[in-house]
């Protein structure tokens, strides 16, 4: 039974965008914790920690996000968990975000002049306090623009969760398309929704970046 593409369908697509945002938020918050651990390991004194973090980043940046999703999705059964698209998508995207944010933040930590660390050490601050009060606050300012930029990549990445059967924005579009058979209108609407979510963030990232560059070259 084919029906018309109507305002109800548009409301359904907008409602599903909520899940895109929720999934992005979960992955970003999880990825922030993971990314901080990866970034600190990557810039630590211990060789083994550095090695593990480097390997982690290489694997997640050198393989398709789609494969990462499939692996976690089918891997749930391997470790004896029930197969659940939301759980799989959240875990895969969190790991993915941890690797990317870890790499971005490592760069920011290393961009903080080494004199800062040396001064903090001279003041006999512990590693913890050195990071917490001296290095990380300065690294955070440098990291904010690329972090916002990555958020756009992450929101776009959540669309792949539709392939393992999680109903977010893209899959809502597929469902409506199957009922109305108006692919041009439906996928145009879905694309427009993503654009509305991502474009402001892209603009913000660009503005922050140019402000940062001006601050550095002053």
């Amino acid at each position, binding site marked *: 039974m084919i029906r018309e593409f109507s305002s109800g369908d548009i409301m359904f697509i907008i409602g599903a965008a909520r899940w895109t945002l929720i999934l992005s938020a979960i992955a970003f918050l999880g990825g922030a914790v993971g990314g901080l651990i990866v970034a600190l390991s990557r810039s630590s004194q211990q060789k083994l920690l550095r090695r593990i973090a480097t390997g982690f980043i290489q694997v997640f940046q*050198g*393989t398709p996000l789609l*494969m990462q999703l*499939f*692996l976690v999705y089918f891997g749930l059964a391997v470790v004896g968990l029930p197969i659940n698209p939301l759980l799989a998508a959240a875990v895969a995207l969190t790991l993915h975000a941890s690797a990317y944010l870890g790499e971005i933040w490592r760069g920011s930590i290393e961009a903080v002049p080494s004199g800062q660390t040396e001064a903090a050490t001279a003041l006999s601050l512990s590693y913890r306090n050195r990071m917490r009060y001296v290095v990380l606050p300065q690294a955070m300012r440098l990291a904010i623009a690329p972090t916002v930029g990555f958020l756009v990549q992450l929101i776009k990445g959540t669309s792949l969760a539709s392939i393992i059967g999680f109903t977010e924005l893209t899959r809502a579009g597929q469902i409506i398309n199957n009922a109305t058979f108006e*692919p041009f209108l439906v996928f145009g609407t879905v694309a427009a929704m993503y654009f509305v979510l991502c474009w402001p963030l*892209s603009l913000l990232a660009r503005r922050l970046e140019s402000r940062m560059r001006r601050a550095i070259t002053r």
Partner: protein
Amino acid sequence: MYQFNFQPVFENLDMLLYGAWLTIRLSLTAMVFGLIVSVLGAVAKTSGIRPLRWLVDIYVEVIRNTPFLVQIFFIFFGLPAAGINMSPNTAALVALVINVGAYGTEIIRAGIESIPQGQIEAGKALGLSPVQIFRHIVMKPALRNIYPSLTSQFIYLMLTSSVVSVISANDLASAGADLNARTFASFEIYLVLTVMYFLLALGFSTLFGAIRRVFFTYPASR
């Protein structure tokens, strides 16, 4: 307890290897055409014609702020409504070219703008021919400046190309999906596929590194 079964994977390894070759071919083809689109886009962007610049800006922003999966759905399912029909393989290639073209436009533009005008004038003062000036003063340094971005863009494109399996275009991820439908050894298949993609990415980045060392290691201007 989960029973691992890699038997179906090893029995069909030739099929997966062929899939890997298809992915390499698709990515390289998309990159070549994508670069042509990028150069055209960059030239249009740096030209003084305003409407042309706006058009390129809209193209770049729309592509960079929507997921590749939605782009491929729009091209493969949506465009036939406007009378443009394509096979899955053509749609996959077109989608990848349009996608990489948008990212490439920005990269090429940065390359064009990285050559100081004074260097070209210095070349003229030394009595170099226009061809020599283009080759030694514009092309090579510009290429060197953007080489890292271009190569990482290619690897990103190759990884993104796995998404074309959703419309059953021929590539490595599709070969894996076919095998999965026949044998149901899902985790094992996708584990091997992930390793294969990783090796492809590693191989290309090693190759690009070697090329860089051969062609672009001369004293930098900075």
